[in-house]
């Protein structure tokens, strides 16, 4: 194990994994409380179009991915507030159209299948130093924004209409939350890939709901579960020679399943 940890690529993977999972753990609480799991899946699949556009244009896929995901997230929000389309329908449309566009871009760019495979299922072990710095920058920016607007985000998650009446700029904060979500999803693609990224946005928060009752407790639990399962899953994947993204998600799912017994035990104990 110590030999493994001395490997440069694994150190970079661990550092990037911890940063990304910390972000996902914090955001996951809001995704679960606001019931936005499907939106997370929609944005992550839409990112495929943006990242493959980067391959096609020969530019850094991180930036095209961020731009594309943010645009799709904002378009979903715009469609549901300005047209008769419901949110899940809008997500379904953008999700499929972006994936299809991504496949066309991939075909035109003649990229290696390995690139596409890494995008879909993640390849954190191949991460380089520059990418670690990019992830670090996005982590700091997103955590700062969440901390700055924390009380408003909680209020929006609790009751949007009342938040507006109380003078909170609801529309601007909704858009801001979508931008944050798109940023976090793009960096999470390095870790677990497009297909599995919604697991990182949902399972830590859902696990925290099983274990905690107060918001700050839940935030802490969610972050610990996300970081712990990511670090554990990475090391386990190296030891067992399993795909890293899938191992992380399986570990998260196992922890979630184990914690589902807690609310049941608690209700039996209190007799409610």
């Amino acid at each position, binding site marked *: 194990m110590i030999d493994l940890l001395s490997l440069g690529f694994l150190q970079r993977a661990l550092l990037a994994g911890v940063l990304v999972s910390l972000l996902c753990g914090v955001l996951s609480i809001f995704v679960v*409380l606001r019931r936005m799991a499907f939106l997370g899946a929609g944005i992550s699949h839409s990112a495929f179009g943006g990242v493959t556009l980067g391959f096609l244009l020969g530019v850094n896929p991180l930036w095209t991915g961020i731009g594309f995901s943010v645009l799709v997230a904002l378009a979903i929000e715009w469609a549901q507030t300005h047209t008769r389309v419901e949110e899940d329908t809008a997500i379904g449309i953008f999700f499929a159209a972006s994936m299809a566009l991504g496949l066309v871009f991939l075909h035109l760019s003649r990229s290696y299948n390995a690139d596409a495979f890494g995008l879909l299922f993640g390849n954190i072990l191949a991460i380089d130093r520059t990418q670690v710095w990019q992830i670090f920058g996005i982590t700091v920016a997103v955590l700062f924004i969440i901390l*700055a*607007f924390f*009380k*408003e985000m*909680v*209020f929006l*998650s*609790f*009751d949007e*209409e*009342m*938040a*507006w*009446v*109380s*003078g*909170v*700029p609801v529309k601007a904060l909704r858009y801001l939350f979508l931008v944050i979500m798109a940023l976090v999803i793009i960096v999470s693609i390095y870790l677990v890939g497009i297909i599995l990224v919604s697991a990182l946005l949902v399972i830590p928060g859902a696990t925290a*709901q099983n274990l*905690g*009752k*107060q*918001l700050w*407790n*839940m935030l802490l639990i969610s972050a610990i579960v996300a970081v712990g399962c990511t670090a554990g899953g990475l090391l386990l994947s190296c030891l067992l020679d399993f795909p890293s993204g899938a191992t992380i998600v399986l570990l998260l799912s196992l922890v979630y399943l184990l914690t589902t017994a807690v609310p049941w035990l608690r209700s039996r104990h209190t007799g409610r």
Partner: protein
Amino acid sequence: MEELAVEMKGVTVAYNGVSVLEDINLEIKAGRYVGILGPNGAGKSTLLKTILGLIRPNQGEVAVFGQSPQKLRSHGRPVGYLPQRPLGNPHFPVSVLDVVLMGRYGRIGLCRRAREEDRQSARRQLELLGIPHLAGKLIGEISGGEQQRVFIARALGAEPRLLVLDEPTVSLDVCVQDEVFELVFELKQKLDLTILVVSHDIGAVARHVDDIICINRRIHVHQPPPLGRLGLESTFGCSVEYLFHGQIPHRVVKAQDD
């Protein structure tokens, strides 16, 4: 001249081309306790939301204490509001004190944390509502009646002059319903508030309010009690039968089309 809390001139609101409110002209003087009655789909909640600024009218003007609701909101003196179903997620992990503090978030401002004076103000609201002992409890762990008190405390958080309550007793048992109306009446007296309350409970509304607005797309203003059968029938669009408890009609027990 008496100050007007709410003034609506020629207000029309339509959804997808179907009008919900038609040519509403209304003046509510400051300090009045006003009940709003009407059948389902009559536009009761739409009227409240137009006054709050949540819905912009297709035609006409709305003024709350002489200003547009949007302007009032941006000046940090919003209207206090109790929505019809204020608790969407009963497992939401916030305490009663956190919920009451939310009412002050607009005043506190973006990127600022609640200060000690905000916490003290929230505790004062809880004391006013007779529930200071619930401050540390989770919102989902208290009874329906206690939750309504908490949400009324939140509505008072921004120290409003106008309090708007949308069906405050809708999911409460009969004893608690009366308690809520009594409580709102006491708050009006103590805080010198203007109150608008939407309710189906004609008897309870008639007992406490100064004026009754009957609404069915258009409005009629009455001065209770007693509340005339003809007035109610013209609002509800069908015949109504009263169950009398003493002097005041307590409840509509039957509504039928002849």
